[in-house]
């Protein structure tokens, strides 16, 4: 008798299983599909340095960068706003993993260009990969008129920069990246080294859907005459409004390409040598997908 009760209970459980409502999808035991992790940063630059973010295929990113004078100059210079240095640039997404870009800075009348290639994109799900790995190779050439005492050859005006970006979006708010960088300058002052190593630390903390706090720091590791070069540290806010991204920040760096901001930063945060600056990015879809 006890056994029939036991079996009745089992039948009841079986009946419940049979008649179970909902949860049909669970029976498919869906293998989690591989999904790329996107939007680690709002922009393709953290502030000065490249971010782990690429611009989309067929997208043209028109970038206007301004760096003002030092804030500590007071009201007469409107805290540096009277003095502006700028870079105007165009980046274009040849594919989702390859971006090409050119720019021109007022500082040293320098042209620069780069190629940025994403080897691996962070993903989740099946065959996921925990971080993105991006390579950047760039070059810059200054076009200042030679003065008689210093005749610069074309070759001596050129510098190169190579970066590997290892980045991870940890969650919807926090993304961090490391950027080992090598800069090679063809021409340097006596006693300086041609090659310079620097390690970049970039990150963002998303404050809201359209706003994020960002930081961008490069620690100069080797090849630097310490007394003439400070580590560039920039702190800022990204604001996205439709097709624009405004990056507003304070930094001790005035340069806007890798050579300039990594090797020519002289301001010290500790002395209050900071400048206000902004990057304005406007994207245009040149080529539509599909």
């Amino acid at each position, binding site marked *: 008798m006890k*056994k*029939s009760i036991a*079996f009745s209970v*089992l*039948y009841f459980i*079986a*009946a419940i*299983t*049979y008649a179970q*409502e*909902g949860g*049909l*999808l669970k*029976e*498919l035991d*869906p293998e989690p*599909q591989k*999904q*790329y992790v*996107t*939007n680690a940063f709002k922009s393709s630059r953290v502030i000065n340095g490249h971010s782990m973010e690429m*611009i*989309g*295929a*067929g*997208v043209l990113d028109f970038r206007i960068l301004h760096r003002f004078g030092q804030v500590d100059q007071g009201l007469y210079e409107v805290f540096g706003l009277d003095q502006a240095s700028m870079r105007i640039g165009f980046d274009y*997404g040849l594919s*989702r993993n390859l971006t090409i870009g050119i720019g021109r800075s007022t500082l040293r009348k320098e042209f620069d260009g780069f190629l940025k290639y994403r080897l691996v994109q962070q993903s989740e799900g099946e065959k996921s990969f925990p971080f993105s790995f991006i390579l950047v190779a760039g070059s810059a050439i200054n076009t200042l008129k030679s003065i008689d005492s210093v005749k610069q050859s074309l070759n001596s005006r050129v510098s190169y920069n190579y970066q590997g970006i290892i980045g991870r979006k940890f*969650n*919807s708010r926090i993304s961090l990246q490391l950027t080992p960088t090598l800069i090679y300058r063809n021409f340097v002052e006596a006693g300086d080294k041609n090659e310079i190593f620097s390690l970049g630390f970039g990150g963002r903390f998303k404050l809201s*859907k*359209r706003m994020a706090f960002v930081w961008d720091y490069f620690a100069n590791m080797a090849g630097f005459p310490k007394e003439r070069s400070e580590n560039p540290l920039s702190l800022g806010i990204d604001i*996205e*409004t*439709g*097709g624009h991204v405004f990056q507003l920040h304070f930094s001790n760096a005035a340069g806007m390409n890798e050579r300039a901001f990594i090797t020519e930063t002289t301001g010290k945060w500790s002395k209050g040598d900071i400048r206000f600056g902004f990057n304005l990015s406007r*994207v245009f*879809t040149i080529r*539509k*997908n*599909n």
Partner: protein
Amino acid sequence: MCAGAELNDRIKEISDKTIIMKIGINAVLLIVIAIAGYCQEKYFTKVGKVTFYSKAPLEDIEAKNNNAVSVFDKSTGQVEVSTLMKAFEFEKALMQEHFNENYIESDKFPKSVFRGMINDLASIDFAKDGKYNTSVAGRLTLHGETKDISAPVILNINNGKLSAAADFKIRPEDYKISIPALVKDKIGKEIRIMVEINYEMFKR
């Protein structure tokens, strides 16, 4: 379950059967029920198509997703569709970024799930080729909000293969998808959603 109970009674009548025998038969019956439970007649797909259209004065937006997962149980009429938000593809990369980051918030709400029932199930003969205009009613969860919806559905049975197509509209504000005033002329007040699914038999 009824069959099981009847057999049980008959077994009780036969007094000289051993308890072991009883246990054996009960066990067999349980297995039969368990198998019946699993072998309900279900259809599934992992490559369902979901497309949505937004028509607005300044911009038309279209996005496609070819990886919707769906299960349909023809014995009960239950249907479920699960759609991964990040799998929607837009013609402009920026639209896709804004869709994921600003509107649908796919990091927070990665999936949309619809659970519902096909109406007029009795009038559908799944063994015969034919086309049926029916409807589906259920609950759609999108952007973390769940709402009752119903939609007309066309079921098509061709060479024993079942396909389903649905076409309906939703309002972003019903799902707490906030659209800033600045872009209100770029995003439709109503979003048209089209679902096309070619089902396969579900084999375990």
